[in-house]
């Protein structure tokens, strides 16, 4: 028979870009507001609301992983070099960080809208519970501790001018139909920039297509795509034009979410010592072979119903799924890993460290001159470049000297309210934040980023603040901090239009003061 027997006959290269329930969005972690009975930990994993808000894809398995440990001792006088970075990475990989031995919570949902939540390797043991989707439920552990759970649809807690960010890195798929067979045409070889570049017609605001990138896409025009200009674009009044306009790209949109609140004692039997809780999330999709009707995916369930809590069973369960997406730190994926599938490593992103150095330097050559043009002090060594440069590094050794301060500077906070017990907790540095790729919640803080991630944190502005020089002071003695770019007075004084924070300063819906904290869905 002529059956055209090649696998291309069922190839689906063009059909794998639909919204997917495997697309995890954000990982939040912060202390619960009521600590009258001891510290409580809130974690929230959000992802695409597919097939619809509050309805879960039954082929998915979501994993929330947690690891608690003491706050690491910090030395302040170590040299700022690659050797220090290497020692740090070897240290976290080999000593206190234990991705392999982390506790975890797995969630699957069946067609009846029942979520199965299994807790593995918690101090009180392993156990499972079944909870209805869309309802706040309390799960009782064997040791009497209670976990609040909500698994269902909510308003998306992410408030961010995502098209603005993608404009800043010339990420074409936000604005153009990019051929699926040409992944090299996604991030185009144009300098990254916070201010529009003269002649960057592909990404500058186009009044003829005002909604380009906001739901409207055009076919990607033929190249060449390199930028041949030599200046920022200015209007008649001499103002630069911002690539951001400060709108919330996710306004009015929902997510599906797994939200849990639990006593710190549930996570560690040494809550007074283990003050850091590393949290990260993963999405897994069922393998085809486990979906075939009539083939039991877990025959052991019938024979040994208690065996499902053992490590052996867990491995067998994961054998039936494929890891698709991971989330820990905001922008670790979109900003630093360039969204590549083979970089979905979750917490175990140690081998990406050299890539982060190269990527931060690449971003620095773009954002640095923009920061300087706005009259701000920059943490990246641009060598006085007046306009952004498209520079790709192949060696971390070559990239590091330029990005040294970006990587090593301590990120200042606007005041000391974050250190809620006034313990003198050291400020965090970017390399500590992004490697490993976890939300490292410090229970002695408010959990505001980078000491966790609170719902109300404007993390996109805080990520951009990495490129501000937080170590030197202005003439009046003031210094930049992670909230500097959220200060409207800065923009009012800057030679830029529109005069707005890059990203919105609050969510489109108010968060709730109580569990499950994320607002009701639209």
């Amino acid at each position: 028979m002529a059956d055209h027997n090649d696998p291309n006959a069922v190839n689906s290269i063009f059909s794998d870009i639909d919204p997917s329930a495997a697309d995890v969005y954000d990982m939040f972690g912060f202390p619960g507001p009521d600590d009258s009975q001891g510290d409580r930990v809130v974690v929230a994993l959000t992802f695409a609301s597919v097939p619809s808000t509050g309805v879960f894809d039954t082929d998915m398995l979501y994993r929330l992983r947690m690891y608690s440990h003491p706050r690491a001792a910090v030395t302040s006088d170590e040299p700022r070099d690659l050797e220090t970075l290497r020692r740090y990475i070897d240290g976290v990989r080999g000593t206190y960080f234990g991705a392999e031995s982390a506790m975890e919570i797995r969630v699957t949902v069946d067609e009846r809208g029942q979520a199965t939540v299994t807790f593995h390797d918690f101090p009180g043991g392993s156990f499972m519970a079944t909870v209805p989707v869309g309802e706040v439920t309390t799960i009782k552990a064997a040791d009497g501790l209670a976990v609040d759970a909500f698994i269902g649809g909510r308003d998306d807690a992410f408030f961010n001018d995502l098209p603005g960010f993608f404009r800043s890195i010339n990420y074409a798929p936000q604005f153009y139909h990019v051929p699926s067979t040409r992944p090299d045409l996604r991030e185009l070889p144009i300098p990254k920039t916070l201010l529009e570049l003269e002649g960057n017609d592909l990404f500058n605001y186009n009044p003829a297509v005002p909604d380009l990138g906001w739901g409207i896409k055009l076919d990607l025009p033929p190249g060449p795509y390199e930028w041949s200009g030599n200046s920022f674009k200015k209007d008649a009044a001499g103002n630069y034009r911002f690539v951001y306009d400060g709108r919330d790209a996710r306004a009015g949109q929902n997510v599906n979410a797994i939200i849990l609140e639990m006593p710190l004692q549930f996570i560690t039997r040494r809550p007074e010592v283990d003050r850091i809780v590393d949290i990260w999330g993963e999405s897994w999709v069922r393998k085809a072979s486990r979906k075939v009707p009539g083939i039991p995916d877990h025959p052991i369930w019938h024979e040994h119903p208690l065996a499902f809590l053992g490590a052996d069973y867990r491995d067998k369960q994961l054998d039936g799924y494929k890891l698709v997406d991971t989330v820990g730190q905001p922008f670790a994926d979109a900003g630093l890993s360039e969204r590549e599938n083979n970089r979905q490593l979750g917490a175990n992103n140690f081998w990406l460290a050299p890539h982060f150095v190269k990527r931060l330097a690449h971003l620095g050559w773009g954002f640095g001159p923009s920061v300087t043009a706005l009259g701000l002090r920059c943490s990246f060594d641009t060598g006085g470049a007046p306009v952004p440069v498209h520079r790709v590094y192949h060696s971390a050794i070559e990239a590091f000297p330029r990005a040294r301060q970006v990587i090593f500077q301590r990120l200042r906070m606007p005041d000391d309210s974050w250190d809620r017990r006034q313990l003198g907790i050291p400020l965090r540095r970017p390399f500590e934040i992004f490697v490993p790729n976890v939300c490292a919640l410090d229970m002695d803080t408010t959990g505001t980023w980078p000491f966790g991630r609170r719902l109300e944190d404007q993390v996109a502005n805080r990520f951009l603040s990495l490129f501000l020089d937080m170590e030197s002071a202005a003439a009046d003695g003031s210094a930049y901090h992670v909230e500097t770019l959220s200060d409207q007075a800065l923009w009012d004084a800057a030679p830029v239009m529109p005069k707005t924070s890059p990203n919105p300063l609050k969510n489109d819906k108010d968060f709730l003061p109580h569990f499950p904290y994320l607002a009701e869905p639209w």
Partner: protein
Amino acid sequence: MVTKALVATCGDELQRLGEAIAALAGTEGADAATRRAYLRLRHARLSGVLDELRDADQAVTAALRRYPDWPDLCYLRAGADLDMHQPDAALARLDVEPALAGSPAGLELRGAALEQLGQYPQAEDCLARALLADPSWQALASLALVRTALGDQEAADALYVRAEDELTAKQMSAFAWVRAARGDLAAAAGDHEAAAAHLRVAAAAFPGYWLVESRVARLHRQRGRLDEAAAVLAGLRARTGRPDLAEALGEVHRERGDDERADRWQAIAQAEYADSAARGEALYHHHRGAR
């Protein structure tokens, strides 16, 4: 615990594709044209209807004529060339698109084209390069075909197993394709029980897929279950209009001793092969040559 997630049938998928094609009506641009052509091609491949495949093939050509510089359309055209048994045309298409040709998707296509041409070492080299860049199920399955052609059935099955492991619940048609290929392998080795087991799984994974049913018919015939083979082939032939199925049906009737029906179906097949050749198609050259 038996998996509760519902399995979509081939009919469900064809309906979904039909709706997607309708939703694209009137849309303009290279991306929309690519999507429309791709959906039609996929619909034709899954339905097995020959005339649909011909129409989809023409739709790809028309889209490419309108948007000659759009790489995805070149890719689709090369893929359709393989559907139409024109591997030389696929290779020529890839040769003029170096960026596409060097991508994992392009390397997979080139490997499949070289396999069709019987240039197995070159195909193997190409697919090995594709796998280095992206261990996709397509490249693994194409490599399995090469190993099959070279007579290494054990290695082929191992590659198919790896291909299966790459596939998710969102790719059940591909899973059924791989399982059917494993059924072919087992049947070729004379292990009819294993072949039947593989085909049962393939049929359960993606019910109603003509390609799996055609393998089931072939296995019935190999096992001497001629009435069952004839029944399956008759149904498939009516659904798809494929001359190769008419020929197979004639052969089964011959083995059943029903020469009248055998002659009638063989005549139909030969007429349709001739018609295909008159259209300039290469689809059934090997069938005509065999007679």
